[in-house]
C-alpha cells in the first residue's frame, strides 16, 4: 500500500495501509505518542475500489485481515474515522486472545471500572470525564478480559465523542488534544480526543475488575442492583467474540460476573452520573 503506519493500542498492534496520505497523516499526528509494534496483530487496508476513485470522488473502502462484505465506504474527509472503524472491525471479528466487551474502562488503585450499554448510553463521555478527574483511562470502546488471569486489559484508542457530548468534554478538558470535527458521519457529528499521557504510558498495565456499571442517559437519577445472571446475559450481548471463544469465553465471563458487583444507573446529566459513579465506587469497589 502507498502509505503505511503502525501503532499499538494496549496489547494489540496494528498496521494500517492507505491509498491516500490523509488518513495516515491524521493517525501519525493523533497517535504520535503511541508505541509502534514490530509485528502487528492486525492489518487494516483503506483503499479505493477502482484506481480512478483515488482522485475522482475519492471514497475510502475499509478492508483488512477480517472484513464484512458490503461495508459502506466513507468519504476521504472521514479517512480517520475509516481507519478507526477498520481497527475496531479487526478487534470485533478477529480477536481470539481476550474476551472482548463493548465497554469503556477506567482504573484507579489498580482496580478497573467497566461501563457498558447501548450506543448513546454515555460510555465514552463518562470515561473521558472520569479521565479528566484523575482516573486512568483504559479505553472508551473495548475492554479486554484475559481468560487466563481474569484481569482487564485496556484498549485506549482515540476517544470517539459524538454530538451533545462534544461541548461537555471540551469544557472539562480544555487543554486536551482533539482531532478534526467531522460532520455528517453515520453517527452524527464526531470528534476524536487523544487520551492523556498517563493513559498512554500505562496502557500495557492490566487491572483487577472491581465494578460493572450499566449507565443509561436521559432519565431521572436511579440505581438498581444487577444480579450476576442478568449481568452475564447483558455482557454476552456486549461481546463480539463470546460465541467464538466458546468454553474459554464462558469461563471468563462467569468468573467476572460472580466476582464483581454490578449496578444499573440512570442519569439526567453528566454531573449527576459522575457523582453516582464516585459514590458507588467508594461503597463497592
Amino acid at each position, binding site marked *: 500500500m502507498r502509505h503505511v503506519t503502525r501503532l499499538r493500542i494496549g496489547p494489540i498492534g496494528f498496521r494500517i495501509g492507505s491509498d491516500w496520505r490523509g488518513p495516515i497523516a491524521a493517525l501519525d499526528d493523533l497517535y504520535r505518542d503511541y508505541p509502534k509494534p514490530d509485528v502487528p496483530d492486525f492489518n487494516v487496508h483503506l483503499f479505493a475500489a477502482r484506481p480512478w476513485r483515488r482522485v475522482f470522488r475519492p471514497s475510502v473502502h475499509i478492508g483488512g485481515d477480517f472484513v464484512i462484505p458490503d461495508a459502506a465506504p466513507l468519504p476521504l474527509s472521514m479517512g480517520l474515522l475509516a481507519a478507526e472503524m477498520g481497527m475496531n472491525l479487526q478487534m470485533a471479528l478477529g480477536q*481470539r486472545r481476550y474476551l472482548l466487551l463493548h465497554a469503556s474502562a477506567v482504573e484507579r488503585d489498580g482496580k478497573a471500572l467497566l461501563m457498558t450499554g447501548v450506543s448513546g448510553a454515555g460510555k465514552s463521555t463518562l470515561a473521558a470525564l472520569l479521565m479528566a478527574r484523575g482516573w486512568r483511562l483504559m479505553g472508551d470502546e473495548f475492554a479486554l478480559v484475559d481468560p487466563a488471569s481474569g484481569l482487564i486489559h485496556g484498549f485506549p484508542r482515540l476517544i470517539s465523542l459524538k454530538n451533545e457530548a462534544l461541548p461537555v468534554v471540551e469544557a472539562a478538558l480544555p487543554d486536551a488534544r482533539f482531532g478534526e470535527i467531522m460532520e455528517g458521519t453515520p453517527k452524527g457529528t464526531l470528534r476524536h480526543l487523544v487520551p492523556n499521557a498517563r493513559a498512554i504510558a500505562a496502557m500495557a498495565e492490566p487491572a483487577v475488575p472491581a465494578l460493572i456499571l450499566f449507565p443509561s442517559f436521559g432519565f431521572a437519577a436511579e440505581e438498581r442492583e444487577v444480579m450476576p445472571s442478568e449481568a452475564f446475559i447483558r455482557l454476552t450481548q456486549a461481546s463480539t467474540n463470546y460465541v467464538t471463544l466458546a468454553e474459554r469465553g464462558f469461563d471468563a465471563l462467569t468468573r467476572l460476573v460472580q466476582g464483581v458487583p454490578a449496578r444499573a444507573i440512570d442519569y439526567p446529566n453528566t454531573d449527576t452520573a459522575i457523582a453516582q459513579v464516585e459514590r458507588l465506587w467508594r461503597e463497592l469497589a
Partner: protein
Amino acid sequence: MVRDARLLTDALRDPSSTAALDANGWTALLAMARAEQLIGTLAHRLDGLPMPEAARRILADARASAGQGRVAALWEAEMARRALAPLDMPVVLLKGTAFVAAGLSAGAGRQIGDLDILVPRERIGEAEAALLAAGWEWVKPDPYDDAYYRRSMHELPPLIHRERDRMIDVHHTILPLTARVTPDAAGLIADACPLAKGLAIPSPEGLVIHAAAHLIADGDLAGGLRNLWDIDCLVREYSEQDSDFCLSVYEEAHRHGLLPAVERAFRLTKKLYGTPVKSYENPVRVILQPRASDALYLRRLLARDGWGRQTRRITRFAFYLRGHWLRMPPLMLARHLWIKWRKGDRPVS
C-alpha cells in the same frame, strides 16, 4: 519486497526457512496465512521454533482457535449424524471434518468452515427432509440460485442451522452434474472407511481424489494453497503405510475420469510443498514432468501481496472463466454468467 505467496508455501514446506525473516517478513507471512485460511496450519508447523514474541502470540491464538474449530466441526458432524440416523443411510464426511474426525495430519490446525457430507443421490431428498425437520434452513432465497443448485450442482443448496448458525453442504457427488467428467459417486460411498456410530470418511484414495477434483476440475482455484496442503499431508501420511499409495490413487482416479486432475494437483503440490509423489510406467503410465501450463496455475495460486490482498486480476479472471467453462456447456455458461451479472455479481475485484 514480498512478491507473492511463495513466502507462505516456503514456510509450510520448510519451517526453518522462517529463521531468515525480519519483522516485515513475519508481518507479510501472517497476513498471507490468514488470507489463505492457513494460519492454524502454519501455527502447527512452526510450533516450538524461534520467532518474534508478537508472532508467537498470534500463532498461539491461531492454534487455540483451530482447536476450538475442531471441536465445533466434530459437534456439527454429530448433530448431522443424529438428524440422519433414523434414515439408516451411509453418511460420508468430506474435507476438513473428515480429516479431523479421522485424526489425519491434514486436520492439524486446519480451518473448517462448513460441514460437507456425501450421501447416495437417490436418497438425497430424504436427507434434505430430515435436516429441515432438525432445524436447518435455506440460505439462498433466490429462486434462480435454488433451481441452479438442484438442476446442475453436485450438492443441495446450502443449508444453515437456525440455532447454531453453521452451514451444511449435502453432496451427492463430487463434481457438478453439468461438468464433462462424471465421477463414480456410488463407488466413493461403497469404498468409504467407517468411523464410529454410522459416519464414514472416503477411502484414502478417495480423499486425495476429491481434494484434486475440487481444486483442478471445479472452481477458480481460490483457496488452492490450502487444498494442495491437504493433498501434501494425505500423500505423505498414507505413503508411509503403503509405498505405492500414489499408484492406488492413479488407478482409482482413472476410474473416476479424474486422472488428469490428480496429475496436475500432484505436479503443483510437488512444486510448492515438495510432496513425495511418484511417477509410474506400469501398470499405468503417469510421468509427473512439469508442464509449461503449470506456471500459469502457480501464478494464480500464489497471487497474494504482503498485505494478504489478492493480486493478478487478469490471471484470476482467466481462472474464473476456466472454472465455469469446466462446469457447464458453452450456451448454458453464457446464460448463467449473464443472469449472475444482471444480479450484480462481479467475479473478480
